[in-house]
């Protein structure tokens, strides 16, 4: 059983809702009209509904939390209840135009394997995650000596679904190492209303959220 499995039923996902929705507009802008989209960890289906409305996509979702799956299905979305990693083994190569991993990577047991599989089944893979070297997190650790609890990491150390940490630099290093082609990078931090504001310079320091668009094939 994956770690995602163990935590799925105890996590209060509503706490991370502002963060999880912060990049929706950016994600929608990266998805071509009429694309076949697989949203891994689609929650209650908010992003898929938006993609369906704005981009007329053919949607598929995978989600482990049964209540969220029921919500998706009652909203008329095509979603299966399954472990993310296991759900990919039944899919052939390039079965989808776009695979979305929106704020789920850090909660998975084998993020590298999941990314590799996502790049197998999708032409374009959109990955987002909170950046752990955001300056506020750094200063909190350095000056207060406490782990961060903020809008992008809204959980205490004992109830967080995240079992991994990631930074912009580390993710770039991984892409380089694996020779994944990075099609686009997008960095934001959240303002007081939890609305995303773009970050152009020094993202590893100044961005609280990162979105990478990876393309299939060698870079």
């Amino acid at each position, binding site marked *: 059983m994956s770690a995602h499995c163990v935590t799925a039923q105890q996590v209060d996902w509503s706490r991370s809702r502002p963060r999880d929705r912060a990049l929706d507009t950016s994600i929608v802008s990266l998805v071509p009209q009429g694309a076949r989209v697989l949203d891994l960890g689609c929650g209650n289906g908010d992003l898929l509904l938006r993609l369906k409305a704005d981009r007329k996509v053919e949607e*598929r979702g995978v989600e482990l939390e*049964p*209540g969220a*799956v*029921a*919500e998706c*299905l*009652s*909203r*008329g*979305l*095509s*979603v*299966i*209840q*399954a472990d993310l990693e296991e759900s990919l083994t*039944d*899919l*052939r190569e390039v*079965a989808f135009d776009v695979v979305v991993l929106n704020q789920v990577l850090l909660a998975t047991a084998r993020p590298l394997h999941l990314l590799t599989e996502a790049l197998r089944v999708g032409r374009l893979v959109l990955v987002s995650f909170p950046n752990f070297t955001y300056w506020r997190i750094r200063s909190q650790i350095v000056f207060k000596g406490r782990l961060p609890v903020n809008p992008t990491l809204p959980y205490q150390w004992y109830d967080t679904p995240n079992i991994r940490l990631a930074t912009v630099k580390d993710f770039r290093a991984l892409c380089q190492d694996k020779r994944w082609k990075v099609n686009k990078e997008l960095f934001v931090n959240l303002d007081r209303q939890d609305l995303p504001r773009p970050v152009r310079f020094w993202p590893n320091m100044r961005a609280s959220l990162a979105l990478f668009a990876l393309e299939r094939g060698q870079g």
Partner: protein
Amino acid sequence: MTQIVKRPETLPEIRPPEIRRLEQVRTQTITFEGPGETLHLESGQTLHPVTVAYETYGRLNEGRDNAVLVCHALSGDAHAAGYHGLEKDEKPGWWDVLIGPGKSLDTDKYFVISSNFLGGCKGSAGPSSINPATGKPYGLDFPFYTVKDMVQVQRRLLKHLGVPRLLAVIGGSLGGMQVLQWAISFPGMVRGAIPIATTARLSPQAIAFNEVARQAIMSDPDWNGGDYSLDAQPERGLGLARMIGHITYLSEQAMLHKFSRRYINGQGRSFCLTKDFQVESYLHHQGSSFVRRFDANTYLYITRAMDYFDLEAAYGRLSTAFSGCRCPFLVVSFTSDWLFPPEQSRELVQALRRVGLDVSYCNIESDQGHDAFLLPGHRMGDVVAGFLNRLTRMAAS
């Protein structure tokens, strides 16, 4: 079924929900007889004539594309919803929680068809119906039939009703097996399939329970080799079969919640061998009420049809079985169902996805066991309604 999703800041004015019921429903029958109407069964035997009992709710629209076929399980019948209005304290049809105006299978939108399957004992041709050749019930002279045969007969009924294609086929348990067979046998007629709490093939454990139930019937002297008059059927054996069945339809949790270890008299042990615990009383009640409405030979045949259903054996591989299917599927299982366990539904989902079909799947949390699909109190209704909405949108575009 109402599901409160989010509570608004200010509470809206509370109005009592409008309760609307189906108008009085009735069971109709159609008999297929004459040249060309002989039914060729998988067993190699034939049947003629073939009577089918059915009910319909709602109206077939002008485009004739809003029909939903409901398939019943082992002990069900054509009476799936509403009231016949013939007796006081009448219970509604077996899936009234799901079917009716404003419900998930909304009879304001959909034309719902429900028939007693081939070989049943509620009006369709079966072991308890009269053999026209002898003027007596068929009994064990009735040919063996399979899930595939049931679906062939339902196809004839649709033709008779002037329904060229189905928006959806839906059913639980043995009903779900019929749904799977429908999508395989007539892919061009099915726009959506909703197999619930079902499997591509029974586990040996489930076959074992069926066999014990059959032995209970056949070891009752009143069974008499299947030759009994309908007013003197093997009640003890059939009642016992039903008691065994009901143990498998519930879960340990459900029994704990329903009965705990409570005694019937509330006092404690009465040091007797008649029923003493409430769970025993429940099983006895289920057994004795069942024999009043069901036929023993029919029980033998239907459980055999369930045992024989095996899509893997019939098509080589499960994904091969579905390779000709075209429609979206909604697979539903229940967490506490150990007779048709969620793992078997996941196998279905896997096979359907492997052939590239549009599959939705939800393992609904419930402690009600296999019976959950017949009961309210979980999200099956919402999930089904959402899927039917999607099918309607897809059919329109």
